[in-house]
């Protein structure tokens, strides 16, 4: 090294060394890596979205498609098999989708209720000390949980409900309900003139029954007196019914029985084979999962709780109601919520059996208008809203059954 270069090196060296040390310190710093990782990931996502957006706009321009929701006001000109609110092909696409949404909600709400009941029954039956009942419940769960829902829907629709005898020759159940290939007919009720008064009084009766039930429960726990919850609650409801009867001097509904006459069935409530197949498939599939959840929840309550409750002298049904179930619910509710969400999402398989739910109507709309992006956004919004509503309600309920600590 020549002597005239030395000052320059000397001048540079401390700085480079300083920078080098600083860099090394930086590279060994966790916080730097955390921030850098976030920044890189963010950048990658932005680049990806930009690329996709660029492709989308390019492709849409190439295909001559414009974005916008104005097509919702255009006349739909397709019919919908079954509707709750009046609808005909001259209505708009927006109205058609709304009709589909109501159909979806109908099947989801009914499905949630029935699946919960069946799930509870089979879940408890799986723990029965009756060997036959227990085996039967296990078989139910294992069979229906391990076969795809879509296949079960096809089976119920094509092999069961469409295969029923025609309407000229229906299968009668106790002379009240009829099973036919064109639908299932149930007895139904019709409101009479005094139904409004009845409804209000019954609501008051039920609310006061719940309040009395809670109050007597508190009395029982805090003061150790007999609760007699059932008598108080029943008394409240029966009182409401008596007052309603005295006021209106009639019962609030008329029974509307389906009548089979020469190749026709009149009256009653008709459920289409599509609706029945979808409901049967959804309820049986989901209830087999719920049964597992209920079983696991009850098993999760330690055995000591049973024994302690029995040692305190509680009767078996009181043990279940006051000791086991409140604790099991804490374990049951989170997975139950996700099964409820699954049922709501799986209702979109209605398209496989031709039941006009929101997905079916939206996809018909797409076939007619070619608006893929907008229809997809509508579907997304619908299902996300449904899912959020269910999980919100269930989370509120979940909070109410959790352990309240000081």
């Amino acid at each position, binding site marked *: 090294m020549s002597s005239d270069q030395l000052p320059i090196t000397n001048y540079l060296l401390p700085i480079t060394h300083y920078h080098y040390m600083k860099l090394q310190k930086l590279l*060994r710093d*966790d916080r730097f*890596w*955390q921030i850098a990782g976030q920044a890189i*990931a963010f950048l990658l*996502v932005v680049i990806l979205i930009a690329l*996709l957006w660029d*492709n*989308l706009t*390019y*492709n*849409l321009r*190439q295909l001559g498609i414009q974005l916008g929701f104005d097509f919702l006001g255009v006349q739909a000109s397709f019919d919908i098999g079954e509707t709750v609110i009046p609808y005909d092909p001259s209505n708009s696409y927006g109205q058609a989708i709304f009709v589909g949404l109501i159909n979806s909600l109908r099947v989801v709400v009914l499905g949630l209720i029935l699946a919960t009941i069946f799930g509870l029954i089979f879940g408890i039956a799986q723990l*029965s*000390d*009756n*060997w*036959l*009942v227990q085996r*039967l419940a296990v078989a139910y769960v*294992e*069979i229906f*949980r*391990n*076969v*795809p*829902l*879509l*296949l*079960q829907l*096809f*089976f119920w629709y*094509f*092999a069961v409900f469409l*295969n029923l005898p025609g309407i000229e020759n229906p299968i009668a159940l106790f002379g009240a309900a009829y099973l036919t290939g064109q639908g299932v007919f149930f007895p139904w009720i019709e409101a009479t003139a005094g139904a409004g008064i009845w409804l209000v009084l019954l609501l008051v009766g039920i609310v006061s029954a719940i309040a009395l039930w809670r109050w007597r429960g508190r009395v029982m726990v805090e003061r150790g007196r007999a609760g007699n919850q059932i008598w108080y609650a029943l008394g409240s409801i029966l009182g409401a019914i008596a007052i309603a009867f005295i006021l209106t001097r009639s019962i609030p509904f008329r029974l509307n029985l389906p009548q089979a006459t020469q190749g026709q069935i009149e009256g009653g409530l008709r459920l289409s084979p599509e609706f029945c197949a979808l409901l049967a498939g959804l309820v049986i599939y989901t209830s087999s999962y719920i049964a597992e959840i209920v079983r696991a929840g009850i098993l999760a309550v330690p055995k000591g709780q049973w024994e302690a409750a029995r040692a305190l002298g509680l009767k078996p049904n009181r043990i279940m109601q006051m000791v086991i179930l409140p604790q099991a619910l804490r374990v049951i509710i989170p997975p139950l919520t996700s099964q409820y*969400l699954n049922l709501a*999402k*799986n*209702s*979109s*398989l209605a*398209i*496989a059996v031709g039941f006009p739910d929101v*997905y079916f109507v939206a*996809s018909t709309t*797409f076939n007619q208008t070619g608006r*893929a*992006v907008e229809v*997809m956004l509508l*579907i*997304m919004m619908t*299902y*996300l809203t449904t*899912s*959020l509503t269910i999980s919100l309600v269930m989370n509120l309920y979940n909070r109410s059954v959790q352990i309240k600590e000081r």
Partner: protein
Amino acid sequence: MQIQSSAPPTPPTSPLNWVQKNLFSTWYNSILTLVCLAVIVWGLSSFISWVVSTAQWEIVGANLRLFFVGRFPHELYWRVWTALGLILSLAGICWGYIVRKSPLFSRTILFGLGALIAAILLLPIELSARLWILAIAIISIVGYAAGRKLPPNISPWLTAAWGLVFIVNLWLIGGGLGLTSVPTNVWSGLLLTLLTAICGIVLSFPFGVVRAFSILYIEVVRGLPLIGILFLAQVMLPLFLPPYLRNLDRVLRAIAGLVLFSAAYLAENIRGGLQAIPRGQFEAAKALGLSPPLVVLLIVLPQALKAVIPAIVGQFIGLLKDTSLLSLFGLLELTGISRSILAQPQFLGRYAEVYLFIGLLYWLFCYGMSTASRYLERKLNVS
């Protein structure tokens, strides 16, 4: 002096005792038993009489090939058999390796063998298929015996072997690189069902691990039905791709949809596994001087993945069932091909037979996998 503890004396159990205790212990149990018996007798007898007299099983026998491999070219069947053989022999090795500490012939294995031999004898299939099945069975039993002799530190190699088998099998089925290529539109039947399910779970792993950190994506996908995601993949994915990828074929788009879907659920499972790792593991790894990426890669992820294996098996079973939805988008997987068989005029209206048969196939796979995974879980926890 030590007092020996012993179990309380058990009263002798006779069949009559057992029946009394388990079926007729109380009056309501007796009623339940009788009701259940009536239901079982009525259901089973009407089902059996339907199976024997009313049902026409020719539709299943005549289309057996279609159900399993669909329209895969007949002269290339050896490739499917080889792929199956590779999977089963490796499965045999792994099974033997895992249960190497238990006695040689457990009841499960004996039952499995018996069922296999019965299946070979009973199925109305051609001779070459029977020979293939026999050969594969022998190879997997040999693999099982060999797996028991493997040294205990071999497990990373077994994992690598599974990756290799996956790639080799894709090559065997798809062709190319010296083999006649089989276009994706003739992939069908059970073959396509298994292929899409396996691709769906395997390819979603990288996404699932990375996306364990992105909440918005997970929440949106989990809020949507799979049918919506598949619609997105079939109809909208081409709109988001550059023009030279626009005519991506239907099977690949379907797999893309399944991956998008299962990645979100996998991410959620893995997040659960990550949360189950105690903080001390992070701190100990850091104290050893590992850098943050290495802490995640070497310490946290292996433990997290091991903790969520049951959840992942459950997810795979779900995905296998969900592949039936592809039939709604015109793919000919197991459900799709049975619908196209049912559309043939000579088989019109034989829904119950076909749906029961493919339902049984799905059930065998799903139930078998969940039973096997529960068994393995117990084994792995004990050792």
